[in-house]
């Protein structure tokens, strides 16, 4: 009987017991400390399943993010040959850990150098939304591009890292490429640490590929420079 009651802790924590069993289990909870603890732990775990919580992020986690962010300038994401300056397509998709550091770094660096609240808000909402999708690509030059797509696929946030500095009359162009060819979506310039952010409002599903090229600062109707990094959207 007692074993049977203990096994109800999971369903109870998820509010899935029938009323009769719930009352039985609640009587049991009054006298069973280990079940009370278990229910509390299960509820905390369950709450994290549903995405961003109203409560503060765990302090340890936040401290670690900050630590990683501070450490990042020494982290080199490129691993392969860097002999080719440009022109190679995607080298690979980064592991989760590197992406996490990249996102945290970019998020902090970008918004601390510009005070564009709407970009920050879009970024924050997208990154925190459990339904958003994300992928990271690395170009031959070590340039890193992280794409975060909104749940409705009508917005794409492009975070770029390790961008080489460029002349003042040049800019990096972000393209989305679909059946009708490449469409220019945004022009960005890297900040002092080689990072840039673009929030693109476009029907992402109409495109298959994203690409980044080096273009005149005023933009180009079609890509003229070699592709620095690209990947599926």
């Amino acid at each position, binding site marked *: 009987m007692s074993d*049977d009651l*203990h*096994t*109800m*802790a*999971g*369903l109870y*924590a*998820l*509010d*899935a*017991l*029938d009323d009769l*069993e719930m009352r039985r289990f609640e009587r049991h909870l009054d006298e069973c400390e280990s079940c009370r603890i278990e229910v509390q*732990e*299960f509820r*905390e*775990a*369950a*709450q*994290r*399943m*549903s*995405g*961003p*919580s*109203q*409560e*503060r*992020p*765990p302090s*340890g*986690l*936040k401290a670690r*993010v900050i630590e990683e962010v501070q450490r990042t300038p020494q982290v080199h994401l490129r691993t392969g040959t860097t002999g080719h300056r440009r022109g190679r397509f995607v080298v690979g998709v980064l592991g*989760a850990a590197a992406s*996490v550091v990249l*996102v*945290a770094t970019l*998020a*902090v660096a*970008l*918004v*601390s150098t*510009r*005070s*564009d*609240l709407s*970009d*920050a*808000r879009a*970024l*924050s*909402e*997208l*990154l*925190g*939304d*459990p339904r958003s999708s*994300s992928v990271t690509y690395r170009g031959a030059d070590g340039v890193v591009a992280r794409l975060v797509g909104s749940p409705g696929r009508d917005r794409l946030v492009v975070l770029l890292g390790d961008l080489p500095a460029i002349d003042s009359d040049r800019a990096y162009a972000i393209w989305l490429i679909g059946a009708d060819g490449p469409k220019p979506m945004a022009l960005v310039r890297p900040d002092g640490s080689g990072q840039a952010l673009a929030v693109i409002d476009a029907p992402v599903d109409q495109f298959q590929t994203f690409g980044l090229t080096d273009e005149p600062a005023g933009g180009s109707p079609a890509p003229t420079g070699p592709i620095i990094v690209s990947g599926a959207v």
Partner: protein
Amino acid sequence: VRSEQALRDRTDRAGRLDAPTDATPDDPAELAMAGAVAHIDRGRVSDALERLTPLQRQAIDLAYFGACTQTEIAEILGVPLGTVKTRVRDGLIRLRDELGATV
């Protein structure tokens, strides 16, 4: 009706990101940091969910996201109530351990 209420309660509990409580709403750096932290946590949660067995995952999905009662879950899955209890609890134990180890 009970399920709908439970789902509403869960949604309330889960809250909304557009008002992270540890950031002043007008501070872009804090907003973005909150987003990044949430993003990382989401990655950990999906990693942890990946480590559940498919049967545990199924039962938890029905109970939590589907707001089903134990009886409904047992009917949907065609397994005895005792099995539902064990699967959900074992799954939550794994989830708790995976998440607890990383924070």
